[in-house]
């Protein structure tokens, strides 16, 4: 590969703890969680299930992104974060002249509007406003973001459930490495919906209180919403365009646990393999990793399985670990994008983020995650994202050299 290493030259994020990169960093620093009451839509679970809502209404998101307020919330959140990432990269004016790709990830797509269509439609199949379903397909949110940003070179969407965004970043890096694209905007977006809230509730894996990832007393996850995007460019383009590399994508892997549709294997064989292969690709050993941003949903199953795999792989070389989902909630298809941006922030700011609300280690593992915001030298950060269907992805970001 003549293009050299693939760098991240722009990041954008919107989540329950902030509408911008700077807001998110401030909340992470101050230990301010975004978990709270549902205000965005009507649901019988409003009083009982806390979530991580983005604090902006669709109208305000549309205003801030200069787009129509009839777009799905998934699209609006994605566009907000993608625009921030593009602006930070300084490539806004080059999008029409370079070979640029947009690779997004989402699990709900336009479901936030589809679920408004269905009640009337179920009464009478000629009823329900078609503009509420026109953007239902996951890919539509990506196309709307491509339309708004002018990206034409390559457009696709990944849905591997909660590992989706990390897979989007992987594909972007591979397409650049193969010389097929110059720049890729990659990440993911998911809005809160009644559909996912009820889905996870039916699985009985939602914590009725703010979640406690990796804690012995954890009771499940809190759903969140948001979007996180990174702008990828090869070293050669960074030099030619004088772009500032924020981090380098040094290794990644995608595996399947092949154990159960929604549960992880007890030993975390899929997650272990993903982390191990990512290290091998980056040519690093476990001892080189300075911080792991865990998948850490707060469910009994995920945290035990992931913790087991982490402990087995890292052993005595275990670096600080934490799940930032205690801040943002689980943003599903967006989580890998949001957490990729957090991982780049960790490298840029040379810091690690606390795992909020942790009190007691899981008795099976005794793992104690990072409990405070702490400045420390970091060279390599690992971020994990696992999903339904056994999809496991792990990615390593490094300080540019």
């Amino acid at each position, binding site marked *: 590969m003549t293009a050299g290493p693939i760098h991240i030259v722009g990041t954008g994020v919107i989540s329950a703890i902030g509408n911008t990169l700077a807001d998110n960093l401030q909340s992470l620093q101050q230990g301010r969680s975004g978990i709270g009451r549902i205000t965005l839509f009507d*649901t*019988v*679970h409003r009083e009982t299930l806390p979530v991580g809502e983005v604090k902006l209404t669709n109208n305000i998101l549309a205003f801030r992104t200069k787009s129509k307020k009839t777009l799905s919330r998934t699209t609006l959140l994605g566009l907000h974060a993608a625009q921030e990432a593009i602006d930070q990269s300084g490539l806004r004016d080059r999008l029409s002249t370079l070979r640029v790709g947009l690779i997004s990830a989402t*699990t709900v797509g336009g479901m936030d509007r*589809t*679920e408004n269509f*269905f009640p009337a*439609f*179920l009464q009478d*199949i*000629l009823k329900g406003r*078609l503009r509420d*379903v*026109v953007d239902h*397909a*996951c*890919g*539509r949110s*990506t*196309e709307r973001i*491509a339309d708004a940003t002018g990206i*034409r070179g*390559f*457009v*696709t*969407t*990944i*849905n*591997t*459930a909660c590992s989706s965004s990390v*897979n989007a970043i992987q*594909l972007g890096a*591979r*397409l650049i490495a*193969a010389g097929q694209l110059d720049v890729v905007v990659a990440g993911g977006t998911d809005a809160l919906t*009644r*559909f996912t809230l*009820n*889905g*996870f*509730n*039916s*699985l009985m894996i939602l914590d009725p209180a703010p979640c406690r990832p990796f804690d012995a007393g954890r009771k499940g996850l809190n759903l969140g919403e948001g979007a996180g995007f990174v702008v990828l460019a090869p070293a050669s383009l960074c030099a030619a365009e004088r772009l500032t590399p924020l981090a380098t994508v040094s290794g990644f892997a*995608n*595996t*399947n*646990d*092949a*154990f*159960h*549709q*929604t549960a992880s294997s007890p030993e975390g*064989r*899929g997650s272990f*393999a993903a982390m191990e292969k990512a290290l091998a690709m980056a040519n690093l050993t476990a001892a080189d990793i300075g911080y792991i941003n865990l998948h850490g949903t707060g469910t009994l199953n995920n945290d035990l399985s992931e913790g087991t795999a982490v402990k087995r792989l890292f052993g005595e070389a275990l670096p600080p670990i934490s799940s930032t989902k205690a801040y943002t909630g689980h943003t599903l298809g967006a989580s890998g994008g949001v957490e990729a941006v957090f991982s780049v922030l960790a490298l840029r700011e040379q810091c690690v983020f606390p795992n909020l609300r942790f009190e007691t280690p899981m008795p099976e593992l005794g793992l104690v995650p990072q409990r405070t915001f702490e400045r420390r030298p970091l060279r390599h950060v690992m971020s994990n994202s696992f*999903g*339904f*269907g*056994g*999809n496991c992805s792990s990615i390593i970001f490094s300080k540019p050299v």
Partner: protein
Amino acid sequence: MSLYILGMGNLSPQKTWEDETLLSQAFDYQNQMLTSIEPDYEQWIAPQQLRRMSRIIKMGVTAAKMALQDAGVEVPDAIITGTGYGCMADTNSFLIRMIENQEQALNPTPFMQSTHNTIGSQIALLLQCQGYNQTYTQESFSFETALIDALLHGAENPGQQILVGGVDEITELSHVIQSRFGIFRRSLRSSLDLFRKPGKGTVNGEGAAYFLLSAQRPERGRRVCLEGVRTLYKPSQETLLAETEQLLKASNLRRQDIDIVLSGNSGDTRLDAAATAFCKAAFPSSSIGLFKHLSGEFPTASAFALWLSTRIIEHHHVPDFVIYRDLSRPMRNIIIYNPYFGTHHSLLLIRAC
């Protein structure tokens, strides 16, 4: 870089399985809904597993198993799936129950199986395949992106065998909703008349086609290769032509080397004029064939076209009901051009090898 087709499995509105012929007979449909001809799934999937699966998962898993059996391979190294709409029946079912039950006492199974990656995940689970596993969903680029990923994966891991598929289902509800957008013909008595009777709209289709691909030339196999793929979102005519040239050039081919263009005309006269004009302008000396009167229109219809192309190359023959312009050429190099609703254009290059 090219990928050899080691095996294929295809469930479609035509009889495309348990049969090595090239569509000896074209199945005709009297409504605007072309649904797959389905096998006895119990021959492919154990009953206790079958019980929980929705139709799209049964179709996908079976097509995948057919492709593996065809290639004589038990477990692939990677599984890459494209689906435009994902698992709609499960999604609809959970959504309806949620509304009817006012968000109380919901069965989680349809929710668990509603994510798009369920098809690829179920294949991985049944085969115990822990390798690379990916699912794309980008309307008519879904299968194409899966192939683009497979081409990268093959270059990165030349010895690996990659299972790649395109899967989409029609559900009663989705058909009703899509019909309200006015995209289907209002009156068409025979789907095989789609291109003979001009009109507005297309016919709805579905299917599941998987292909086992490898960058390494197999000892036995189908002697057909996938050479390259392009997806072009809302391209200008110049971009479309330039990208076509690029695709051919990457395989050291010229336009006149293309024996047939399989064009994804939909039967909607308003859109087909541009598609046919492009084929004639870009490939003046090639035969032209059509396939959506056989598969119906759906996001992953190009997977059906890839199956058809492979068979055309193997049989050195194009069925009469596929031919639109016959320039009696040998069948070695095929372009599949899919101009989905005029906004999503894709090109696939397939060669005898």
